[in-house]
């Protein structure tokens, strides 16, 4: 069963949105793909669907560099609401930044499961989603 996960993409880069959505669809890795252009939009969705396990994502690919609310700011807010959510959500930070400062910072946030440097390869994406099933 490859396609029973809700995948959430939070990124302001529409080209990236285009390519990753296309990749996920091509590999048929998701039941549903949600795309948000900044953290605030994503957070608002989460707050609206706190108990809605059906719509809540199983995995989030979170960009760091966004307007309004960036990845880290999103994680701050998400950590606050997480206790109210009764669903295991895996968060990956996905960034084009190879800056060690950014990577270190991401690793220091407990709720971030991993840091992926763009561009994310189709195989890598597949491995991640398959690992969620275990």
């Amino acid at each position, binding site marked *: 069963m490859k396609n029973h996960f809700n995948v959430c993409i939070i990124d302001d880069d529409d*080209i990236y949105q285009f390519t990753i959505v*296309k990749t996920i669809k091509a590999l048929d890795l998701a039941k549903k793909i949600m795309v948000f252009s900044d953290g605030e939009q994503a957070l608002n969705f989460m707050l609206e669907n706190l108990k809605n396990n059906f719509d809540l994502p199983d995995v989030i690919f979170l960009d760091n560099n966004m307007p309004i609310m960036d990845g880290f700011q999103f994680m701050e807010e998400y950590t606050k609401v997480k206790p109210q959510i009764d669903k295991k959500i895996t968060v990956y930070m996905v960034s084009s930044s190879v800056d060690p400062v950014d990577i270190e910072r991401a690793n220091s946030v407990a709720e971030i499961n991993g840091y992926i440097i763009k561009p994310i390869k189709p195989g890598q994406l597949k491995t991640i989603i398959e690992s969620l099933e275990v």
Partner: protein
Amino acid sequence: MHKAIKDNPKIKHTLDRINNAARIGLWELDIKTETYIIDNITCDIIGVPHDFLLSHQESYNFFQRKSDAEELGKLMTNLITNGVSFDVELELCTTNKNVIVVRKIGLADIENGVVKKVYGIFQDVTSKRNTERALQSTNSELYSIINSSAVAIVSVDKQSNVRQFNSGAEELLGYTAEEVINKMVPTSILLQNELKAVSKEFAAKYNKKGIKNYNPFYELSLQNIKDTREWTFRKKNGDLFPVELSLTPIKNDLDEYLGVLGIFYDITDRKKAENELIKKNQLLNYAEQITMMGNWSWNMITNDISWSTNMYSIFGRDPILHPKIPFETYFNHIHPEDRGNVSNFIENTVKENNFTDVLHRIVLEDKTVKTVHLLGELIVNELGEPIEMMGTCQDVTQLRMAEIKFRGLLESAPDAMLIIDENGIIQISNKEAEKLFGYPSIELHHKPIELLIPDKFMHKYETSNNNFYTSAKTNKVECSEEYFAVNNRKEKIPIQINLSPLETEEGLLISVAIRDITEQKQAEYKILKSKERLEVLTDNLLNKNRQLADFAHITSHNLRAPVSNLNSLLGFYNTSEDEEDKAILFEKFEIVVGHLTETLDTLVEALKTSNGAPTELKKLKFEDALLKTTEILTGEIRETGAIIKSDFSKVPTILYSKVYLESIFLNLVSNALKYRSPDRIPEITLKSFLVKNRVTLTIADNGLGIDLERHGHKLFGLNKVFHRHPQAKGIGLFMTKVQIESLGGIITAESTVNKGTTFILTLN
């Protein structure tokens, strides 16, 4: 005179001879004629010719004194009328003006109660009278001597009985004459041991040793000598006192020993004075020994030289073996190298009539070299000619050695050293001081220290002065404040001073160590300059670093993102076989390439801006820049109905790059319009003023505002956008910041969400 005798020629002749020898003349007064009949002798005595006729009346003219004449007149009258004889001595003046003493005897022949004849003897008794007088005066002198209480006289016969004991002896010894005269000399008067000592001495001297009952007083008579010495006598009450006793043997005409005469007087006071003198002399000797000082005098006329005991020991000479000091001795002792100096000194002393002091070396017979310090005085006679020099001579070898050591120490000091007295007068200086100040040592001597370290020093010094002096005895006081010294070319030298007190016999001195800190100062200045430069450099580096970090960030995000997108797109493109799909992908390529180009352009622009000073700086009016901005933004302003206010009255102009200033105005004003609140008519206020002398510009709006707590750190980042605005690209603020910082300015922002934002630009 009896007629019988007178008439007997033989007898008369004999009488005449006697009369002649004894100068006895005869006289008779003829009562009837009132005329004297005088013989030749009488004529001779009164100095008149032998045939001189002397009337009774005239005879009174010869008398020296009126009283004598009157007395004789009475006697004569009484003789003539009553026959009363007389015998008087009278003074009369001879015709030769000699005053002589004569004896006149008057007799009368009386018959039946009537005076028939008056006559008598007339004798010149002058010599007799003189002898008598001399004897009398001698007697009275002797008497006064014998009875004087200052001198005691005692004579003792050979049986040791006291014969004479005058009042002086009574007074000194406390016995009365009655108590001792014709009795044995009280044995208690003499101290037996002194008597024995004298006996022994005489016995030894006159080879009378071993003789029993040897009498030293008898020996005096044998030797026919006097003996004068000090004895100690005991008074009746037992008190002892010193006397000087002269013993003289008493002999009769036959040279037989009769006894001894002792004359003595109390010498207690003299002894006291003597003892005092001895004591003082001892004290002087002692003092001279302690101070290693001698005294000397030089009679310049006789060339006699006298030295004190210690003077001999300074020169290593034996005062007993060589008591005489020839004039050359001193000079020969002078160290050959110092002889010239000393000669000059003596010459000067005589010339200037002023003996100051001189220091020179002497060489002893055993080749020991000493340094002596001479102080003295020149004595001149009424004509101002020098006749004597006298003074002291101190052995200052050790002092000199100490001084030489001290000098050495002083000279070896790396600092300039001055020793000043409490009035700030320079006493000693070293070579370093000469070098530092440019004055030779001699010129510094006795000069006030202000010459070298002007007023500031003494002023500062005095305030701490009292404290310094009072505490100096116990504490070493150091002060190492920085001062300026002035050298002989009136150049200021920065110095560091170190003061410490030196206690000496001459009072408190202060040693002043002075260090030239010009180099230190220069080094300090260099360090300061370097530090300043370093700070600037650090600032620059920090700036560059920040820019580099910015660029790293930009590369990391803004360049890698499109590149990774390109890669992803390329992947799809390569695997896609659908032409329509490929067309869509290609569109995406164009968008990414467009982004990439824009980002690269911005980066290139930013690099150009931040690398070195850009375009030339001109004096620009803020008003002009704002005008140009509003012209460009006319459409937006009209569309939004924005109100733009400005106040550039405080600082109307600025020296700045025209391009940058216009760009900054455009970016910030357009930002304010772009992020306006949809609920309010945009209002933008621009002001210029000075803050800490720097031109500051504020641009305030009433727009959406930014949550600075969230976004503050990336407010001015490239491609950072904070609003979901279609035109938000995150380039404007980034470029604004780069431009401001490239000209040394700072940009900050204050903002409240939904109230507005104020950008504060500190320009230059």
